[in-house]
């Protein structure tokens, strides 16, 4: 019994050291992208950002019809106005962001060494609002997705350039995001990978499942099922509900870390936001 306890203790003490050695985002990235390229050899690498439209010709044809009049057009125009408008104190969103906020969406989410947490562009915009005496915007839909539509449009085509710096907190956040992606949850006991890796390209009722590679590169999206625009977090909440898991707060650490992982896995792919999905 005592020997068993000693062995258990030794195993527990050794675990953190082993875990730190295992976190290798660059290797994960290579393996992740190689997996999808091997699984879908006829899909050009950049086309993965089109999700279901890269998987199914019929859906692509419908999408091209819809895109003659992008359903996110109103959100895009409104987002441009919102971004340019001054706060009551005279400052602008541009004052809080690098390069005035233009052409930076591909760098987010980023790790903030000051707070030790992942910051998504939505959260950065809200921080800007708070610093300038305004209330935060809802992270899921409304003015926030309109702003995001405009900012991602200004980065359209730029390769995703999310970085996991050599900081143990950043690597831990990345690892948490990765664990979230692969962990089963909810009454239906699915993980993100269940649908977006195993099920990629397959049908789920009337939908064609998008591969995890490039999955969030087209956000924010006008989703026909919603009849409106939404951010990545809006979809995370929806996905949680669909597997009958209890969704979390929109600004939860889990969602930030998951977005960090997913965006990093799409490094090199062109930003394709805003997007339109069924």
């Amino acid at each position, binding site marked *: 019994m005592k020997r068993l306890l000693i062995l258990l203790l030794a195993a527990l003490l050794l675990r953190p050291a082993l875990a730190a050695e295992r976190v290798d985002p660059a290797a994960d990235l290579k393996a992740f992208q190689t997996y999808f390229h091997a699984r879908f050899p006829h899909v050009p690498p950049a086309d993965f950002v089109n999700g279901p439209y890269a998987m199914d010709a019929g859906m692509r044809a419908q999408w091209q019809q819809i895109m*003659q*009049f992008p*359903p996110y*057009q*109103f959100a895009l125009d409104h987002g441009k106005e919102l971004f340019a408008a001054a706060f009551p104190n005279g400052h602008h969103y541009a004052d809080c962001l690098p390069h005035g906020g233009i052409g930076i969406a591909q760098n987010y989410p980023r790790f903030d060494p000051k707070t030790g947490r992942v910051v998504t562009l939505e959260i950065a915009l809200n921080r800007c609002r708070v610093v300038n005496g305004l209330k935060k915007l809802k992270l899921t839909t409304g003015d926030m997705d309109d702003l995001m539509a405009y900012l991602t449009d200004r980065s359209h085509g730029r390769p995703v350039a999310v970085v996991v710096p050599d900081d143990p907190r950043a690597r831990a956040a990345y690892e948490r995001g990765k664990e979230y992606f692969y962990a089963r949850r909810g009454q239906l006991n699915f993980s993100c990978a269940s649908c977006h890796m195993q099920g990629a390209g397959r049908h789920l009722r009337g939908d064609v499942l998008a591969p995890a590679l490039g999955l969030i590169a087209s956000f924010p999206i006008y989703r026909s099922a919603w*009849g*409106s625009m939404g951010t990545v977090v809006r979809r995370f909440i929806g996905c949680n509900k669909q597997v009958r898991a209890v969704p979390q707060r929109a600004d939860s650490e889990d969602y930030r870390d998951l977005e960090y992982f997913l965006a990093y896995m799409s490094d090199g792919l062109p930003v394709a936001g805003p997007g339109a999905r069924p």
Partner: protein
Amino acid sequence: MANTILVRANADGGSTVVQALIRHPMDSGFVKDKSGKLIPPHYIEVLEFAHNGTVVLTALWGPAVSKDPFIKFSFKGGKKGDTLSISWIDNKGLKDSRTAAIM
């Protein structure tokens, strides 16, 4: 309501294909808001397209049409440079209109 209409018209041989996206809530009057109160009906009732002054399409819409409706149709005639005008009026009496050149 202003600037709610996005339109594109393309002349193709003897006919013109028109596509329009209209920003409108198209509330049916049956949906409740978060506090449980019914959102009053607010939808486009009549939509009209005219080519060089002649009406080519009249749409009698109602609560069954969804938010931000999209319409696509074609009519005989029309050539590049002609004027296409669009106007709508809703059940609250609000309206918007716009003209565009056929491409």
